[in-house]
């Protein structure tokens, strides 16, 4: 057997890239904890932790859960984005494009108003409406008599997202302006400023479970990205397996949306970037998306909480950078249509 040097190099480079991304994420996480606006904008000296109980409090109970939440949010949105893209065989799909994020936001607002405001009900409601949003989009796209599959999915997604946005608008109108409205508004902008351990811990099981499923099933994802008949001929049960992975992706998305609100564009832009780095094969693209997404949202959130005395909503920052990057991809690179 001939030795294929480029393949060895490819594997070697990919491993190096993983190691680098993992290291970068860990270092960024460690540094982020010491970065902020206390006691003054910039660095918090580690020596101060011993002397200043407030600093220690801040670090353990505010910054650490927030950093954890940011990484989780990025990882979950990116992995879900990649999964949805491959399941729908459509590289332009993103949780926010399919009614998933808006559905989750509506579900959260609905739960805040009518179902009590416990973290568990908000999450469950977010997940249920996220799923409903996805189903509606899929159903509508099948009914539309205009354009190719990509266009129909996007159009249906816009319509469903608008529907849920309007629903959120109605809920805002009905909400108590002092207690409920601020909570709802938070969903729409997306942010992590109110994150404490009691918010983060409940979403850990669902997020971890969903991401583990996606990670383990990444070869199946490659199979399911083939045409229906081909996937079937390779022994897959496309309907059942798609549904299982779809549920995992929507579960992860709904969990982090119930924590961070609608943080847009991450699920579209990070998988694109990951594919540029390591290729389309989900064996590499999925873990790369996970790490890159965690890093991206962590950096965005660091900016969000330090740039000004007030908080810049995280969703605005991710949308800004995501949309800009997307424009570059659309104009500079060939994006294939069906």
């Amino acid at each position, binding site marked *: 057997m001939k030795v294929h040097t480029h393949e060895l190099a490819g594997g070697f480079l990919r491993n190096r890239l993983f190691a680098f991304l993992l290291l970068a994420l860990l270092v960024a996480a460690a540094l982020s904890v010491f970065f902020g606006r206390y006691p003054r904008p910039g660095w918090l000296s580690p020596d101060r932790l011993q002397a200043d109980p407030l600093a220690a409090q801040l670090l353990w109970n505010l910054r650490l859960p927030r950093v954890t939440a940011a990484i989780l949010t990025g990882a979950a949105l990116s992995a879900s984005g990649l999964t949805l893209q491959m399941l729908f065989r459509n590289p332009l799909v993103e949780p926010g494009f399919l009614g998933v994020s808006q559905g989750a936001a509506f579900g959260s607002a609905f739960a805040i108003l009518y179902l009590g405001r416990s973290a568990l009900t908000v999450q469950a409601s977010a997940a249920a409406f996220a799923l409903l949003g996805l189903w509606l989009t899929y159903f509508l796209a099948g009914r539309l008599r205009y354009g190719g599959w990509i266009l129909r999915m996007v159009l249906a997604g816009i319509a469903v997202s608008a529907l849920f946005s309007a629903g959120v608008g109605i809920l805002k109108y009905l909400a108590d302006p002092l207690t409920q409205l601020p909570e709802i508004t938070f969903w729409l902008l997306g942010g992590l400023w109110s994150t404490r351990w009691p918010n983060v811990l409940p979403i850990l099981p669902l997020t971890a479970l969903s991401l583990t499923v996606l990670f383990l099933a990444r070869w199946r994802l490659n199979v399911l990205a083939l045409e229906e008949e081909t996937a079937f001929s390779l022994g897959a049960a496309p309907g059942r397996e798609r549904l299982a992975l779809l549920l995992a992706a929507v579960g992860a998305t709904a969990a982090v949306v119930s924590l961070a609100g609608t943080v847009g564009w991450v699920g579209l832009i990070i998988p694109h970037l990951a594919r540029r780095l390591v290729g389309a094969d989900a064996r590499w693209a999925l873990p790369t998306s996970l790490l890159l997404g965690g890093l991206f949202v962590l950096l965005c959130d660091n900016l969000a909480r330090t740039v000004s005395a007030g908080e810049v909503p995280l969703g605005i920052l991710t949308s800004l950078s995501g949309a800009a990057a997307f424009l570059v991809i659309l104009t500079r690179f060939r994006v*294939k249509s069906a």
Partner: protein
Amino acid sequence: MSHPPILSLHHVWFSYNGAHDVLQDVSLEVYPGTINAILGPNGAGKSTLLHLILGLYRPRQGEIRVGGQPLTAYSRRSRSRQMAWVPQREHFPFEFRVLEYVLLGRTPHLDFLQMPGPGDVQAARQALERLGIADLADRRVSALSGGEHQMVLIARAVAQETPILLLDEPTAHLDLANQRRILTLLEDLAAQGTTVLFTTHDPEAALAVADTCTLMRSGRILDQGPAAEVITTETLTRTYETPLRVLSVDGARVVRLDLPPRPLRACLKNKVA
């Protein structure tokens, strides 16, 4: 024949909606190591027949047997080790590399969540080498020419290492050189023991390589048997419902659209003269 058929259909009926039968009383016997063509016009039910054999749909009536057992007795995975599928074309929304795509053919040999290992990579490379396209390994699947695309689809099926290969219109989109390339490849695969069943609307493709030929029209079998005996002026004309003629040229058969001879147009007569 002395061998039992590796694949057989017994009086198979099928309908998509329960009302109109797309396949009517289709019977077929395929013997190991042979090349078998299903020939007919567009809409004859050829692809549906392959889908049924693949297990994608179940017959309304009748039975399909693979390797002596009813198709329904196979699990998804064991079935995918018996038959590999080559679609007419595959649309790739993502930029897979050729080797990554061919590697997907190893899926039936992996456990549910197992990743392919070095042995699978080697099998995929061997499939590419067997088809003489090892140099394509690192190309992007979406950047292939029509002929290369078809070769890569077949390589993925070959990497699956199944005794039976099903191909849907393998030469339909290809120019003559690539048609020859694919047909020669089918002959090579059969010579090495693979059983080949392919659909085509091109009688020339069937005449060139098929051992047996089944003529289909409107979901029914019109005739079947050794390709050289079945493909005649009379049967083809009936199958395509258009005048065709099978001629003998240098000992080989050629199919010709039976158009009347046309006089040279008046405006060109001067030039020729």
